[in-house]
């Protein structure tokens, strides 16, 4: 396969799907965070809160 970038325009349907996805995600992200919430380490560690408990 060539390393050259290939330009294939998005279809109207794909463009609309992208808009729908972004709207849905951004609406969902709009929920309150606990103001007292303490951020954990940025490296994902599922046990971080259990260790602190």
């Amino acid at each position, binding site marked *: 396969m060539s390393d050259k970038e290939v330009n294939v325009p998005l279809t109207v349907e794909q463009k609309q799907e992208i808009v729908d996805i972004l709207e849905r995600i951004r609406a969902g992200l709009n929920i309150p*965070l606990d103001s007292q919430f303490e951020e954990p380490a940025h490296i994902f560690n*599922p046990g971080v809160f259990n260790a602190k408990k």
Partner: protein
Amino acid sequence: MLKNNKNLTEQCADLASGKETSVSLTMKALDKAEEYSYLNAFVVLDREKSLDQAVASDKRRANGNCLSPIDGVPIAVKDNYLTKDYPTTACSGALPLEPSGQDATIIANLREAGVVIFGKTNMDEWAFSPTNVNSNIGPVLNPHNTNHVTGGSSGGSAAAIASGIVSAGLGSDTGGSIRMPAAACGIYGFKPSYGRASRHGVLPLSWSLDAPGPLASSLKDIELLLPYFLGEDSKDLSTVSSAKFEVVEHNEAINVIHLTGEGLERSDEIDTAVKRALEASSAVVKEAGLSHVDNYYEAWEAIIFSEAASYHQPLLKKNPGGFSSGLRAKLEAGSQLSALDVLQAQRLRSQLMHTFACELGDWDIIVTPTLPVTAPTLNEEEQEFGGKKVHAHKSMLWFCVLGNMTGYPCVTIPIGLSKSGLPIGMMLMGKPNEDEKLLAIAIKLESALKKHSV
């Protein structure tokens, strides 16, 4: 499972007693694969390669050099695990059809144990869909009813097990891709804690959510397989603290939180099945809800879309036509999420983990249905349950994404059939890195269920 097929544990016993050889087991699996070829469970299956491995296993056993209890058992592999002797395509048109020349760590572990790598199984394109309808070789059909999906993205492995072609298979799980097909096909699936199982050589979908794991015909099968999944691997730094798997027992009372309430709706039929299963168990059950839980789905989407877009960016620029139209739109959307969007999603993820760890009280396991409603038909776009109409993709992922957002270990067990004959699964979630305890509890709980049903 559909028929009274032997599970992995029974197959191992048959090999040990001489009742079966690896060649006889592999021949049976090849015959069944042909019989059930209409399910479209396999991308590639090579009779000669499978039998060569089986012959070698039988020679080892005859010479007293058996490598492990699972030496000689045929196991199916999802087509996103690198295998040195088979091509790895992730069921995408974007990858060349050539053997990769290397094995994923888990494949290497299984080869060292003498397993017959039986073939590569169908999956959703790049594992980025929950139904196994979106594959470049076509959908996998559910062995219980071929008008219905298997669930994805490890649908090929699930169908191969449920139809009795093999007793166990490999999957990967980013939002439920092991648990959803296992539940929809009436088998068992285990998603390890994030960081317990090596992701090296498993093509990524979303690196902070991905977890490779087994699908099988019983919980004891899962117990046999987990030693080859769990443990430190220098090639995957997320496993630096991963202990080797050790069998444990759980003899104390089981404290269960059954998650219910807004955002955790399910059909009446599924709700009744889970409540009956919990009543039949000896567990102490408390119901609890979670605030804003339905919005965590979009936080999960922000993480998976952005990480997948980042990973696929080079290939997307070189070969956009190699992706299906729908997947390309998802990846383009992921690349347009802002840094603030993704950071907000990560903060919500942390908040969810904090809630699970600190605000639900004492618990040994958290229980939900695996799916809120039985598997949709192949063409069904929307499902209705609990007074809601939900896109079929979202309904499949409804509960399962919680396991990936938190990174907690999860197992799905079959708890019966719906009135229409489709399987119902129950999901048990354990504490992080306590995969062994989760499995021990699942075994104890299932044993109580079986006694009750007798």
